[in-house]
C-alpha cells in the first residue's frame, strides 16, 4: 500500500538521489557546453580590464538603471520581490538550512518562521502577478513559449506546497511534506533542461557582458 508516509520516505530517500543526480548531470552538461566553446582571441588594444568589470557586472546587473525602472517598474520591482522572496524561503528557512547542512556540511543562521512565512506569502502573490503580467503584456505574451509557463509552474509549486505544508493545510502532513519535497525535486530535474539554468548561467552571461564592455572601457 502506497500511503503518504511511504511517499514521504520515497521522496526523502531514493527520489532525492535521483533528482540530485539528474540535476548535477544536467547542470554540468550545460555549464561545460558553454565553457568548452571558449572565445576567439581579441587583438584590439584594450581600454580596460575584463575580470574586474566582469565581476562587477555580475553584481551590479541585479539593479536596474533608473530609466529601465521607470519604463518597466513592474518587471524590476516584482522581479526583485519574488527572486529575493524565493531565495529567503529557500535559504533562510531553518528546515532548509538543516537540509543543506546535512548535504554540504555548512549551515548558517535562519530567520524566524513567521518572517519566512510572510515572505513566502508575498512571493506567491508576486509570482501570480508575474503570470498575469506575462499573459497580458504584449511583449511577454509574444515571447512566451510553453517552456515559460512550465518553468513558472515548477517555480510556483515548491512555494505553494511549502506554504500549504507549513500551515498544515494538506492533510496528512507527510503527504504535504512529500509533495513539497517532490515539487522541489521536479524543479531541480527541470532546471538543467530549461531556462531555469539562468540561475547559474546568468552570472556567466553577466561576466561576459561586463568583460566585453569593460574591455572597451564601459562599465555595464
Amino acid at each position, binding site marked *: 500500500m502506497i500511503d503518504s508516509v511511504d511517499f514521504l520516505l520515497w521522496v526523502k530517500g531514493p527520489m532525492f538521489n535521483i533528482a540530485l543526480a539528474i540535476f548535477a548531470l544536467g547542470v554540468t552538461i550545460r555549464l561545460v557546453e558553454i565553457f568548452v566553446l571558449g572565445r576567439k582571441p581579441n*587583438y584590439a588594444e584594450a581600454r580596460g580590464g575584463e575580470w574586474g568589470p566582469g565581476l562587477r557586472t555580475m553584481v551590479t546587473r541585479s539593479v536596474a538603471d533608473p530609466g529601465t525602472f521607470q*519604463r518597466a517598474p513592474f518587471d524590476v520591482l516584482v522581479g526583485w520581490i519574488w527572486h529575493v522572496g524565493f531565495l529567503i524561503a529557500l535559504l533562510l528557512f531553518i528546515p532548509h538550512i538543516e537540509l543543506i547542512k546535512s548535504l554540504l556540511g555548512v549551515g548558517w543562521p535562519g530567520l524566524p518562521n513567521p518572517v519566512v512565512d510572510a515572505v513566502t506569502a508575498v512571493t506567491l502573490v508576486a509570482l501570480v502577478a508575474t503570470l498575469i503580467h506575462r499573459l497580458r503584456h504584449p511583449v511577454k505574451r*509574444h*515571447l512566451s513559449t510553453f517552456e515559460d509557463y512550465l518553468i513558472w509552474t515548477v517555480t510556483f509549486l515548491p512555494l505553494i506546497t511549502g506554504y500549504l505544508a507549513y500551515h498544515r493545510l494538506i492533510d496528512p502532513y507527510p503527504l504535504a511534506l512529500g509533495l513539497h519535497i517532490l515539487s522541489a525535486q521536479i524543479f531541480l530535474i527541470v532546471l538543467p533542461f530549461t531556462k531555469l*539554468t*539562468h540561475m547559474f548561467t*546568468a552570472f556567466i552571461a553577466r561576466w*561576459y557582458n*561586463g568583460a566585453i564592455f569593460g574591455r572597451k572601457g*564601459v562599465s555595464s
Partner: protein
Amino acid sequence: MTELSLERGLQAFRDEIDAPVAAFFSSCVHCGVCAQACPFYLETGDPKYTPILKLEPLRLVWEREFTLWGRLKGLLGLSRRVTDEMLAEWEELLYDSCSMCGRCSLVCPVGNDIQYMVRKAREGMVASGHAPEGLMGASIRAVRTGSPMGLQWKTLEVQIKHVETSTGLTVPIDVPDVDYLVLLSSMEIINFPEYLEAITKIFDHAEVSWTLSTECFEATNAGIQIGSKDIAALLVERVVKAAETLRVKNVISPECGHAYTAVRWEGPNLIGQSYPFRVFHIIEVLDDLRAAGRIRTEGKEDDRLSLHDPCNLARKSGVIQQQRNLMDLVASNFVELKEHGRYQWCCGAGGGVSSNERAEDLKRSAFKRKKAQIEEVEPERMVTMCATCRTQLEEGLEEFNMDIPVVGLTEMLAEHLVDK
C-alpha cells in the same frame, strides 16, 4: 562560381557561436526588458521588434547543434529548423529594426549582450544572401571604389583645395612618419566639409603633425554594417596598409561612430593581429590635446546646448567624458539629456539602418525616442560627433518642424581657437 546559400549562412552562424553566445542564450528568461531599451519596439509598439527575438535563427542553431538537450529535441522533431524562409523573415528584424545601438545589452537583467549577438547573426544573414539591398550596394561600392557612396579622391581633392583657400593652411597629404593619419567618412566629405576645415585649423593650432592618405581616406566600413567579416577585413586592410606605408604612429577615426568601432575594436580581429599603430577617435585626440594644454580657446557659446552621444562612441567604446570636457571648454550653457553617456538613446540611424532605404519608416519611428529626449530639455542647438547621427538628427528635427540646428563638436571647437 560560388553562391551565397542557406548552408553557408548556417556555417557562418556555427562559426560565430562562442561561449558568451551560449551563456547568453542559456540565460534568457523571456522577461522582455530588452524591448524597453529598444527604440524600434518602443516607438512602434510591435512586440516582434523585441531585441532578443531578433536572434531566433542564431539561437536555434546554437540549441540544435551546440546543446545535447537541443540535439535530442531536434531528433524528436521538437525544435524548429532554420530555413531560407525564416531568414528572409528575420532580415527585417536583424537589419531594418536594429541599429546595433547596444542599449538592450546594457539593461538585460541576466546580462545578455544582445548587440554582440546581432553583429554575429548578421554574418549568417550575409552568407545566406539575406542582407538588405541598400547595404549590399554600399558594400559593393566600398570594395570597388573605396567609398560606400562611390566617392573618389578627386571629390576630396576639391574639398581640400577649398579648405586650403579658406584657411590659408596646407592640408598635408601622404606625408610619412607623422603622428597622425586622419581618416574621413564619405558622408562628412559630402555633407559636412566643415569637419576637414576644423581639424586642419585645430591641428595647425596645436602643432600636430598629421596627414591624409591618397591610398585610403575612407574610414567607414560597410562590411561591419552588413555584418560580413570578409568584406570588413578587405576594407580595414586598406587602412592598415595606408598607415603602414606612411609609418604613422596613430590613426584618427573621424566623427563617425561605426567607423571608429570598425577600426578600433574589430579591425585587429579582422586581420588576425594587433596593429603597429594606435587608433583614436578625433574626440579622444582633441581631449588629449586639451589636457596637454595644446588647445587654447576664447569665448563660449552661450545658447542652450545639449549633447547627443553616438552609441558607437559612448556605449560601445567608452568615449563619454572626453566630449564633455570639450563642451565645457566652449559652451557656457550646456545641458545634459536625461539619459546620456552609456545610457543614451540611439538616433535610430546606426548599424546600417541609414544605408537601408527600405528601413526609412522604421528609422523615422525610432528617432521619435531621441526627439522626445531632446524635447525634455529644450536645447537651442544639439551637438554631436558622428556624421550619421548628425544627419539623422538634422533630418528628423526638420521633419518634426523643430528649429534646433545640429553642430559637430570638432567644428564648434575650431571656432573658438585663440588666433596664433
